[in-house]
């Protein structure tokens, strides 16, 4: 009988009765062939591979991460609660040491969902990894977490949520933002003033194949993780770098994904995107699961797999080498940059527009951070949309100093209710979430 070398947990939730719309890539059919392959391979029968039923994420779990407008249940469906809950279940099982590693094979995905949520972006409503991580932080007191986002699209939502958090290292490998949605994730995006360097973006050229991904992993990702020393490594395991994916341009394969999983040794993997539902997902998911369980995956390959046809060009290789050099240089310089930023202004502001492509909403944000020398700094976000909502969201971080807590409460209390539809206070210090209606 087949026995895993690593006790591996799986939550498998294909949400066979939920879709964004009938012909949307994020539809009922998406994990159908994965289910077929996982079932047919008998993966859930492997000794040491344990399947768990997903818990439902709660509204409180969402409130720890997001500001949902007008409220949580207006922007999520039951599927989102199950999907986030599935990630949470895997996290709990890892923390309780029932399993050594776990894979939340769930949909819908979440890594494009930012701190403020007005609707769906990039097929995502709430950030299922962040919901899991913040739950684990509260329940188990873990502090340093690294997220390695291997989805082909830049994990801009996760980046946004952890932009100001020095205890969360966010590394995203993705197709260059000049060539793909959401158009962000450049190497100069390194995190806010109090967390500069803790966001690491590694944009890769189209047609990067196995060679390039594993090079980046070995030369940049693993050394940076080694430096950061996280207590928990989470892999946002998007599978759209595949050479058959219909909405991206990369040349990765199932063997590559499995090998990447083997080397990365993430504690938790959470499925993100990946829309080659027939040609890639069944094989990639089987490869990842086997690799997590410490089992042989050498015979996992796509039926049409021809390594020569998808090999990256010399030019791509050279480009990737340059990107890795830049990334490493940036990582080394980060402490210095942070020091400099902290000694500068008292408040830092940024203004930006965020487009919700799935729900067609345009949001304008003005974010104000108290650049605090003692903590990661309290944050306020003034957000309005072309659909007419205007909110103020105040976030007091997990390990806020007294002054930042006071500043946050003051922002919340003194906000003019006539100007906003909602005023929110997410106080992570005291684990409370307050709402004032305008």
């Amino acid at each position, binding site marked *: 009988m087949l026995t895993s070398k690593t006790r591996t947990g799986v939550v*498998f939730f294909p949400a066979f009765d939920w879709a964004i719309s009938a012909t949307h890539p994020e539809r009922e059919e998406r994990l159908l062939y994965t289910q077929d392959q996982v079932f047919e391979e008998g993966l859930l029968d492997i000794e040491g591979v344990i399947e768990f039923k*997903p818990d439902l994420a709660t509204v409180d779990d969402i409130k720890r991460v997001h500001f949902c407008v007008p409220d949580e249940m207006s922007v999520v469906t039951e599927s989102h609660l199950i999907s986030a809950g599935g990630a949470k279940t895997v996290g709990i099982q890892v923390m309780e040491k029932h399993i050594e590693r776990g894979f939340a094979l769930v949909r819908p995905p979440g890594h494009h969902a930012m701190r403020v949520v007005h609707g769906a972006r990039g097929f995502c409503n709430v950030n299922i990894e962040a919901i899991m991580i913040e739950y684990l932080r509260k329940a188990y007191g873990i502090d340093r977490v690294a997220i390695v986002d291997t989805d082909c699209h830049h994990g801009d939502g996760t980046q946004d949520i952890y932009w100001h958090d020095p205890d969360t290292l966010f590394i995203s490998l993705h197709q260059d933002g000049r060539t793909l949605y959401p158009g962000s994730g450049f190497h100069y995006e390194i995190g806010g003033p109090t967390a500069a360097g803790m966001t690491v973006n590694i944009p890769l050229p189209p047609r990067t194949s196995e060679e390039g991904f594993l090079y980046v992993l070995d030369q940049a990702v693993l050394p940076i993780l080694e430096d950061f020393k996280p207590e928990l490594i989470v892999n946002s395991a998007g599978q759209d770098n595949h050479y058959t994916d219909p909405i991206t341009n990369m040349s990765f394969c199932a063997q590559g994904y499995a090998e990447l999983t083997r080397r990365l040794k993430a504690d938790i993997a959470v499925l993100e995107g990946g829309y080659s539902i027939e040609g890639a997902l069944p094989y990639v998911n089987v490869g990842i699961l086997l690799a997590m369980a410490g089992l042989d995956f050498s015979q996992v390959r796509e039926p049409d797999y021809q390594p020569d046809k998808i090999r990256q060009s010399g030019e791509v290789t050279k480009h990737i080498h340059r990107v890795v050099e830049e990334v490493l240089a940036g990582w080394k310089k980060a402490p210095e940059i942070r020091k400099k930023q902290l000694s500068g202004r008292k408040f830092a502001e940024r203004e930006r527009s965020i487009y919700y492509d799935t729900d067609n909403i345009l949001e304008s944000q003005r974010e104000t951070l108290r650049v605090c020398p003692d903590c990661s700094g309290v944050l306020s976000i003034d957000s309005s949309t072309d659909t007419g909502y205007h909110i103020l969201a105040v976030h007091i971080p997990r390990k806020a100093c007294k002054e930042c807590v006071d500043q946050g409460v003051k922002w919340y209390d003194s906000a003019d209710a006539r100007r906003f539809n909602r005023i929110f206070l997410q106080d992570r210090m005291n684990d409370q979430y307050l709402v004032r209606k305008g």
Partner: protein
Amino acid sequence: MILGLDVGGTHTDVVLIDKDGIHRQTKVPTDHADLLGCVRAGIEGVTGGIPPDGISRVVLSTTLTTNAIIEGKTNETAVIVSAGPGVDPEFFRTGPHYYCVAGSIDHRGREIQSVKTSEIQAIASKLKTDGVRQVAVVSKFSVRNPKHETQVRDILGDSFFNVVLGHRLSGNLNFPRRIATAYLNAAVCETHRRFFDAVRESLEKKGLNVPIYVLKADGGTMSLEASLQCPGQTILSGPAASVMGSLPFASETEETLVLDIGGTSTDMAILIRKVPLLDPLGCELGGYKTLIRALKTVSIGLGGDSVVRLADGGLSIGPDRKGPAMAYGGPVPTPTDALFVLGKVNDGDAGSSRRGLQPIADGLGMSLEDTANRVFDEACRKILSAAGEMISNINSKPVYTVQELLGGYQVRPGEILVLGGPAPHFARRLGDFTDSRVRVVPRWQVANALGAALAKNTSEVTLFADTERGIAVAPEEDFYKTVKRDFDRESAVRLAFDLLRDKCVKQGAVESELEMEVIEDIQFNMVRSFYTSGRNIRVKVQVKPGLIPGYREIADRLAESVPPQT
């Protein structure tokens, strides 16, 4: 009249029933070296003076194949597998004659790589040289397209005793289980056939030219002829028989926990409003996970004859059995001996029981009587805690749709039905430890034979259709047809019901027994480039497991005579 036989591990139980209830019943010790002798003796025991034409059917449940598998007394069997990409099929090796060959089919049933004739021919001649006569042929995704399995069979030709094809055994996806299931079916085939040919012969000699049915692991019956095609289905029919025997007395409105407390073990099962719960994929036996449709049963090593001993200053019961209770001449004290000490049973040597339990009482520093009570309480608690664990496992089973998850159906049995040798004694004490109502199954001593006799035919049909490819396949039925683009879920269900009806009748079912139901019907639109290119449809239908309709009144009669709970 119907004759029901259950060849159990310890006893062979036989009942002869008519519409008024149990006409006759008997129990003979099972001699594992001569099962046929036991069957004969059992039939003799109830048919004396009954005219052969008064008996309309014989239903038999036996541990024959189960034991053959557990004891490894099966025939040398070759397995030929074609896997294609995925998990290395070497992991599922069944023995020395295991061949991984070329050939690959994908999840939608499309051929990726063809079978190599010369490779199969070489294996065939090797097997002939080695004298292997049983072959199982299994390919990955053969339930979506059985082409490779049938091709291999055709190349092997007719020089083997039996060639079992994986796709004929179950429509469920699970390649490793399909390999194990095909292997086991091939491996027990000769044993099964020999035994049943002998049973048929001996019945015919008695002038009983009646249909013979065999009880399956799912609590249903099939004709003897049908069982020769898939003898593996008869494994674990022992627990199935007792579940079916308790079925007539179960609640119509709530869930029931069935406890069959035997000598060596206690088997547990769940009924949901009189319908037994099935294992979702298939049962596990002798280290093999299979696709054999079976009732969800859990067995623990705790029964009336389990060894009672001191361990780390405390009391331990089971999981081993060293023989009968000391009161009946056994070597070590047992829970049954505790019953003797308490004076609840008196058909043996109570003195032996007292002598056996005394050292344990001394070790615990308790009186003999208190020790006996404690043994008995401990046994009850262990059974209930194992049952609790089984129920929580059932309730934590993953589901795959939003509706199922939010529906959140949870099994919470409101009653417990107890059967098996020491049933009445256990029932009363179990009641003290649980909020559920505890009842003894009427005629608890032979309820399993009764269950076999009253069980009706059950079958299942799985249909898979893919309108983009224009196919509909029912692998177990050897059914394949081309379909048009308008083929949908409703047409699929209709087709599946037709196939099911045919299958049941072929297996010896009577039309009036057929209570057909849909257990799975899902339809996915396949979208390619934002246009619906076809439908992917999966339908599973079954005959609801249960009892022959005409014999409900027997149950009512029996229920009137509930034994005292001493």
